[in-house]
């Protein structure tokens, strides 16, 4: 029995030992990848070097660098990633599924190109490898995964915020497509031909994968179109294409002579980017005043944008609602508990106004109210709240008035009548008044100029904006409503006539310090360098502040 007891003891001991050997594995440390490799060629230079080659092996020790701007995460893009540096973008074809797991948007990658192949498929450049097609010819195809792994070097963790896409209209794109092919672009002011009707793509026969071409049309000119290539394998393929006018983002490519854009995921072409001109209540696309006027009964909550035209007169309450123009103050002195917004700064009709409450002590009241700052009249206010009546008038009720609920730039130029230098138009109003017969005064911050030698502005590259030096043209300046404007689409171009004080005193070549200064200038509001402009000034009718 003693032996038996000993055996049982042994058994217990061993069971204990065995049960402890659980073979748990610790998580391995996740190290940020780094590489000492440096690029010696830009993507632009690489493409220029091999331009026109249907297939060629890269034998020089070319090293490029770029960020991953597109991958196959949604299934719309297949077996490729797109790499882009500050000069250009190029597609890299890789024989692998679900590449996105390893190559995320914003990942910095260095590629040693020697041993890879450059090729053009339908004129679209790509990096990859050779393969034998069904006509028994060598053509550009995908590079094998392990070979690509050897050639590519990741640096750092992905930084998706660094991925920017240039914003263009279709017109700008069509005029200068070559430099954009291979890059991530955002195309604005477009609408889908079958928006609201057809899905992005449907599967082919026997549930097979097929890619369909859908058409994007320019809102400015319906003759200008862009093809969107949509795969039925995309996880958003079954969604109906958005209706309305808006913008899309995607990778630009070419097939023979057709420009194409390929969306990366559903966010690149989501309905929230589109509106029928009335906005959709998001901060990026706030509802227009007209929408706010027409939607007062459903308690819709969202953003609206309008010009401040006045405030509500005192004494308005439930028993004394707003019912006439006199119930709104359109002139100083104003009250401080409300502001009234309208679609343009000169509206004086209460039925075309939206009342916005300014809660006591709130951030919005401090910054916006007209009682303390009457000069805010005519300025643009973007604010979030619930659309509901304010004592008889259309209104937007805001909840707290904290900084997150509104957007207001004190420095914006408020628009006047344009007839005198004391009441100049703002740039945004001056843009909309292009073609007026009489000369009008406009006011704006000097933010840059159109580049010397450009005859018509079609892209960012044609202007110098958002910088403080390097200006090369004396003939013009760009002015805008905000001193930090970087989008030339929000500017007008002011002509500086030769041999006049307007030129000598204002031009940025000789006076680069004028950046950020306010220019009030008179002129005919007509097109200049293809953009809205102010021209035909005598040469002296201006004020530089």
């Amino acid at each position: 029995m003693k032996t038996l007891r000993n055996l049982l003891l042994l058994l217990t001991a061993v069971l204990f030992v065995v049960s402890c050997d659980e073979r748990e594995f610790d998580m391995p440390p996740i190290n940020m990848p780094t590489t000492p490799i440096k690029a010696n060629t830009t993507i632009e230079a690489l493409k220029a070097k091999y331009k026109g080659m249907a297939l060629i092996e890269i034998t020089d020790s070319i090293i490029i660098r770029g960020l991953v701007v597109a991958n196959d995460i949604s299934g719309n893009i297949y077996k490729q990633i797109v790499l882009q540096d500050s000069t250009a973008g190029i597609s890299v074809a890789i024989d692998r599924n679900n590449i996105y797991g390893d190559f995320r948007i914003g990942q910095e990658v260095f590629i040693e190109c020697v041993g890879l192949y450059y090729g053009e498929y339908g004129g679209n450049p790509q990096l990859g490898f050779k393969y034998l097609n069904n006509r028994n010819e060598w053509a550009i195809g995908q590079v094998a995964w392990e070979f690509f792994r050897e050639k590519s070097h990741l640096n750092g963790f992905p930084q998706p915020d660094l991925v920017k896409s240039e914003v263009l209209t279709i017109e700008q794109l069509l005029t200068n497509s070559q430099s954009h092919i291979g890059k991530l672009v955002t195309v604005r002011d477009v609408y889908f031909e079958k928006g609201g009707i057809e899905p992005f793509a449907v599967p082919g026969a026997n549930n097979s994968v097929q890619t369909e071409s859908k058409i994007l049309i320019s809102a400015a000119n319906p003759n200008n179109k862009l093809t969107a290539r949509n795969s039925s394998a995309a996880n958003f393929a079954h969604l109906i294409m958005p209706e309305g006018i808006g913008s899309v983002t995607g990778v630009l490519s070419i097939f023979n002579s057709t420009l194409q854009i390929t969306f990366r995921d559903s966010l690149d072409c989501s309905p929230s980017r589109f509106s029928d001109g009335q906005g959709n209540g998001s901060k990026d696309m706030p509802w227009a005043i007209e929408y706010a006027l027409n939607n007062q009964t459903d308690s819709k909550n969202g953003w609206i944008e309008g010009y401040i035209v006045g405030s509500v007169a005192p004494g308005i309450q439930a028993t004394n609602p707003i019912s006439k123009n006199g119930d709104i103050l359109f002139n100083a002195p104003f009250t401080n508990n409300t502001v009234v917004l309208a679609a343009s700064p000169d509206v004086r009709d209460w039925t075309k106004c939206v009342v916005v409450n300014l809660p006591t002590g709130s951030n919005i009241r401090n910054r916006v109210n007209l009682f303390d700052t009457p000069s805010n009249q005519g300025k643009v206010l973007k604010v979030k709240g619930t659309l509901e009546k304010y004592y008889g008038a259309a209104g937007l009720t805001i909840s707290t008035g904290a900084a997150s609920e509104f957007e207001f730039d004190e420095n914006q130029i408020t628009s006047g009548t344009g007839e005198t230098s004391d009441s100049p138009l703002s740039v945004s109003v001056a843009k909309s008044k292009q073609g007026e017969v009489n000369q009008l005064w406009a006011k704006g911050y000097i933010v840059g100029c159109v580049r010397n030698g450009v005859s018509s502005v079609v892209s960012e590259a044609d202007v110098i904006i958002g910088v403080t030096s390097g200006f090369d043209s004396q003939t013009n300046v760009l002015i805008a409503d905000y001193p930090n404007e970087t989008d030339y689409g929000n500017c007008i171009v002011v002509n500086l006539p030769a041999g006049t004080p307007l030129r000598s005193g204002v031009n940025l070549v000789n006076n680069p310090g004028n950046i950020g200064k306010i220019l009030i200038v008179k002129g005919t509001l007509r097109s200049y360098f293809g953009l809205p402009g102010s021209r035909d000034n005598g040469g002296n009718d201006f004020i530089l502040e």
Partner: protein
Amino acid sequence: MQQKYFMKKNLYLFLLLFFSVSAFSQTTSLKGMIVSSSTNMPIPGISIQLQNSGLSAISSFDGSFLFEGISPGEDRLFISSPEINNSEMTVDIIENQTNDIGTVYVSENARKLFSEGAFTLIDEEDIGEEDQSSHNVSSLMTASNDVYISSTSWNFAAMRFKLRGYDYRYSNMYINGINFNDPERGGFSYGMIGGLNDATRSKDVVNGLNPSTFTFGQIGGSGNIITNAANFSRGTRVGLAYTNRAYTLRGSALHSTGLMKNGWAVTASVAYRWADEGFIEGTFYNSLGYLLSIEKEINSRHSISFTTIGAPTQRAQQSSNFQETVDLVGSIYYNSYWGWQNGEKRNSRVVTTFEPIAILSHVFKINAETKLTTGLGFKYTTYGQTRLNWINSASPQPDYYRYLPSYQTTSVMKDFYTGLWESRNPNVTQVDWERMYRVNHLQKLSGSGDALYMVEERRNDQMYFSFNSTFNTKLNEHTSFTAGLSANTTKGMHYNTVSDLLGADYLTDIDQFVIRDLNHDPNIENIKQNDMNNPNRKVVEGDRFSYDYNIYVNTADLWARNTHRYNKWDIYYGFNLVYTEFWREGNMRNGRAPENSYGKGDVYSSFDQSVKLGLTYKLSGKHIFSGNVSYSTLAPLTYDSYVSARTRDEMTPNLQSEKIFASDLGYSLTTPIFRGSISVFQTNFYDQTRLYPYYSDSENTFINHILTGINKMHRGVELGLKAKVTSNITLTLAGTVAEYIYSNRPTGIVAFENNKETLPAETVYFKNFYVGGTPQTAGTFGIQYFYKYWFFNLDINGFDRTYVDIAPSRRTESAFNFTANSYEEYVDAIKQMMTQERFAGGFTLDFSVGKSFRLDSKHYLNVNLQFKNMLNNTDLKTGGYEQGRLYVDKITQNYDMERFPNKYYWAQGFNCYLMAALRF
């Protein structure tokens, strides 16, 4: 007066005769004692059979055995056990006497004494198949006294030889009279008695459908492991072994009190097997087996015993491999399941299992001829197998066909990939764990906590209760009668759990491939759910997900058999009635079958019966002829009865019992020098139902191909011959030449687990193809030499005609539906698709040496060294399968057979087993 006297005389005569008869049947008996010739110690647990009387007994703790109520005259006594050199002798039985043949000396076969037997070689050996079953050779057969069966099961185990080509479900395994075959999968899991070879040594083994005391029988034979404590002799045994097989070290200990004066007996045993890395790279092994048996002899007629056995085990599996990868890495021991993590080898396929059993049995010796054995058994199985799972991400399997050199189309890339494989770049040839953690981390950085890679553990647990009662009696000098009744109930629990999220925060429990294929369906939000009752559930480590269902099986079984024995003739016949019912119960409402997956499903029930008949003609003591014939029906196994058990309650159409018609004819010879037999057999199977699951790694889902109406024919010749040419030298020759084929064209349907579809039924062109996975020609020739307690053994074994397991999907009309450039090309492609690969045959050479040492009067040491496959033949494929998928070249629209080549398993090269055991 005279009449009365006459009547009285007749009456006296009659009474005298009657009493004589009674006395005759009561007092003719045979007894003896089995003693080891090397240690002079009695040996319990030895099987002794008395041929003419057809009785068998097991030597008890003191080595003694007793046959009562036997027929007088000359008879033959067979003594067999794995631990001794089987022997036989002629006995002369005098009627009305207790014939005491005294001490029978047997020589211990140390080779077999502490050997693992076939257990070692194939031990729950990790078949990394998608399905979990532990395919183990029925090594119980080494205990058979039939020369063919014992030597082939010993020598052919490494080649996964199946007796008569029968699948494992056709052999029954009992422990103390309770059947422990798995009611869901059919086979017996040897892992359950994990390594407790000493404690489970005592076996009653029956070949085929031959009569036995504990079961009706099965065509593949039956075994009953007897662990009653009183059967063990008093003493202790400890053993230590070193090996280079699935495990490296084995330690075992057994202690038994023997039957003590107070009627109690206790036996306890432990066995521990361990390997940090077995012969297959990246496989570890950790198994602890325990046994406790307590018996009380209440009186001379009643004894009651309790046994509990268990073997918690954790081990890692090996992969089936392509010829290409094995050639590239230069080793048949390549394993695609492991990869480096933090400097250690981590295997993605780990099996963790524990199947404790408890048996309570009662033996009632009603009288000298009659015995009633009743038992209650209980088993609880936990079985988990881990595997990688990947969601919307690239396959992590290193041997995915696209990651191999053969996939590349340019010679530059073929060479590049070949270089990566040949140099064993671990990021390429093995699982890249660190990459999977990194990808999950990048996913988290991008704002989503959903895992792209994870490890899941598929659980197949089971609870099993069984009741069994067997009645044995001798009706008269010629006739014995056996009957049995048993009932069992099973609850199988099948579910998937999250084992390791590899750094991710959670997993959303939906089917990704449903999303890919059915995104256009307006009802996709429901269809993609794995459990509509808990939609879009985020699961973490330990949670159940993907599927969760139970299978219930109840059976009741009644059988009876009569055996008649005469001088020249023996005849037996019997019948068996079985009732089976089963159903599925879903615990999740699957989005693809919302009406048909949750809750209790339809019940299937079946009555089945078997009849058998056997005849033996004893020409003389030397020459015996025998013939057996049987017809049985077997209810389908639940494993084959559901089209997609994980997702829905849809039974295989035309579900029915299979029919088996088996027959054999044999001749056996017994002379002082020669002992052996030759037999021919034929078994026809009709209307089998089989599930062929295969895993599509491009679709990352199971595809089930269910075949119904399968007919098979197994037939062949078997030979086993032993010749004792001198007192020291014995030669053995055994082998079989057989043919196991499919004899018709079954019907098949295909079900996808990630879809609601079940494709329409198609004919599967299987006729005349071979059953795969076992050599259909096998033979062994051995020389045994004994000298002064040394033994030497040399065997040469040969194998041929092992075929690959054929895939049904390659042999359907829709598979033939492709275009080729010409008719000749079409015919060639069909041929390539349909050809069944036959593996190259080969030889192995085994050698073993052993000796018993008597250290002192109490201590005995046995040393045994086995060397198998001494010539290191690494070209022997033991099995393999055709892949279910077919590849259509996108450009040419042709089938490319090279894309999805066959996958194989190889027999281990040189391996050894060195052990020492001490008894005291």
